[in-house]
């Protein structure tokens, strides 16, 4: 492969990145990511210039005129090129970098929306609080209002994870026994994908999530709905599904508010049917995928905490997954 082809094949996907930028630091959708994007642009341009200077010096050293080469072959050239030049550029860069850093850390909005996120092997527990401070729990999909600052309070239930939604902000690690705080906001509505960025064992590769930014009014409505108990099952099949859910012990790990299922080990399923994806943004939500997770979750995400439930007849499985898919 020639260098030219290498360059074109590298640059083509970059140009095409408009169609697949749901998880990209190069498609900033919020002020924090934008500032970093600008910084990245400057860094890349600067690096390109420095690289050119070094290559030019190398070229001159090997192929230049005798005078130019004599000029290069001195301690002074080493001091100018190796000490003075980098010192000046680096100090300027450092100042700028520290400014961006402070801008991203400093809180803008004292009344920021607060969301707690707990990293678990290998999914995300999401907790909102309503006006009275009651917990509203969800998983793997985070709704935020557009234009409002959101404060994420991050921690972990087991090993170290890292919370990263590149379109909105840089990443921040999640530790057991510590709480870290990340503030960000989204400029426009959209779905932004995020992924765990600290190796957390086994299925680390499959620990993703989505941040759904919606207009503020929609967010309020959504949150109010989310706070309500799960809709009661209508129709015989759904009722049978709920009975199976409770009798098979699913409620030991999963909560469905409004029923006796109050487990806190696995994701809260109160509105699982309304989420776009299940299994930490691994599979799109549907009857079929829910049924697969119930029966065969260990093949979808090896090592996860949920045992396989191969005890249901096809009819029972259909009723159960249908009930869950209907929880909206």
């Amino acid at each position, binding site marked *: 492969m020639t260098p030219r082809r290498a360059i074109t094949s590298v640059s083509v996907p970059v140009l095409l990145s408009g169609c697949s930028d749901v998880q990209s630091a190069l498609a900033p959708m919020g002020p924090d990511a934008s500032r970093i994007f600008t910084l990245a642009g400057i860094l890349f341009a600067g690096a390109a210039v420095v690289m050119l200077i070094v290559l030019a010096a190398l070229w001159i050293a090997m192929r230049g005129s005798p005078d130019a080469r004599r000029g290069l072959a001195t301690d002074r050239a080493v001091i100018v090129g190796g000490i003075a030049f980098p010192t000046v550029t680096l100090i300027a860069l450092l100042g700028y970098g520290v400014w961006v850093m402070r801008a991203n850390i400093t809180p803008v909005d004292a009344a920021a929306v607060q969301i707690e996120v707990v990293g678990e092997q290998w999914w995300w527990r999401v907790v909102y609080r309503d006006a009275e401070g009651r917990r509203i729990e969800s998983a793997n999909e985070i709704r935020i209002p557009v234009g409002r600052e959101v404060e994420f309070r991050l921690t972990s239930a087991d090993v170290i994870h890292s919370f990263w939604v590149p379109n909105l902000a840089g990443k921040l690690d999640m530790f057991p026994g510590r709480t870290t705080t990340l503030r960000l906001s989204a400029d426009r509505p959209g779905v932004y994908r995020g992924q765990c960025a600290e190796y957390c064992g086994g299925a680390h590769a499959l620990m993703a999530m989505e941040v759904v930014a919606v207009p503020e009014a929609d967010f309020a409505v959504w949150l109010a709905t989310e706070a309500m108990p799960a809709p009661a099952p209508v129709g015989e099949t759904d009722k049978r599904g709920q009975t199976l859910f409770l*009798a098979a012990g699913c409620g*030991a*790990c999963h909560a469905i508010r409004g029923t006796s299922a109050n*487990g806190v*080990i696995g994701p809260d399923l109160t509105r699982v049917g309304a989420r776009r994806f299940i299994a930490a943004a691994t599979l799109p939500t549907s009857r079929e995928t829910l049924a697969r997770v119930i029966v065969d979750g260990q093949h979808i995400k090896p090592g996860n905490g949920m045992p*396989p*439930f191969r005890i249901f007849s096809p009819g029972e499985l259909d009723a159960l997954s249908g009930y869950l898919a209907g929880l909206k």
Partner: protein
Amino acid sequence: MGWPGLLGSLAGLAAAGLCVVLLVAWSGIYNVSASRGHWPLVELLLRFGMENSVEAHAPDIVPPRLDDPDLVRLGAAHFHTGCAYCHGAPGSPMSAIARHMLPPPPELTDRVDPWSDQELFWIVKHGFKYTGMPAWTTQERDDEVWALVAFLRHLPRLDPLTYRELALGDVMTERQDGRAIAMTTSGADEACARCHGTEGKGPLSDLVPRLHGQPAAMLERALRAYASGERPSGIMKPIATALSPRAKQQVADYYASLAVPPPRTQAEASEAGRRLATEGDATAEIPACLSCHDAQALAIYPRLAGQNAPYMANQLRALQRGSGEGSATRAIMAPIARRLSERQIVELSAWFASLPATP
């Protein structure tokens, strides 16, 4: 002769040897009949090899308390099912057919003592090649093998009456309904009641589960799983295999219909056991046991209230060690069992044992 020459001759010799062996096997000269016995020298050599092999392979582990009466009783019942036909038992000499095996199975009364506990364990678990002595039908239930070893240690001192009491309890042979199948099948050997008891009477050994009042669906599935090997047990496998599907259903219905007898011993329950069973431990990802094991749960799950603590603890340990996925319900329980510590297992078993059974 240099290296290549030497290596060549060695290879040639090996090839020639292999040819001779093949030739003998193909010709049929060798007599494989069991009717003529081994030559004395061969017999001596085989015996020498066998003894040393056992000594070398016997595991370096500490046995459980082998004078535990629960263990001895369980071992006795299985001895009667699995071993007595070939080895004989107090009061019933070994079968005339078994006597003509090569080598003939030994009468065990005076043959057990020279072996150490670990050596007996190894023999029972693994059997002997080319002798007819089988291995335990599962390699995952060391606790069952120890039960048999415990019994073997008692065997030399047993008179026929005590043996019968230990191995058969008060089994009889009479009517042909579900109850009768439980009490007899082809003979007294497979009768469930030998170990599991009957109306108004629980198991005589705490290592044996109380089946009274359990959901029939669970019992029937368990018998199927024992028969297929999805649920490992060297004791239950031969018994479950011998039961027809209909018989499995009937015997399950029979025990499901029985009232729960009072426990033999009162277990000491701890607060920690209660908390774990009712609330679970979210940080260790242990769900509350009662979500699946109370009276409202699916009928394919066992009810644990009033169950014998030593049996339950053994089952949890077997689930922890189990290698394969096993039956569908075991596949659910095994990962949960692995999250339990030994202490939690003991606390949980004791707490459940202390509960009054609620059918």
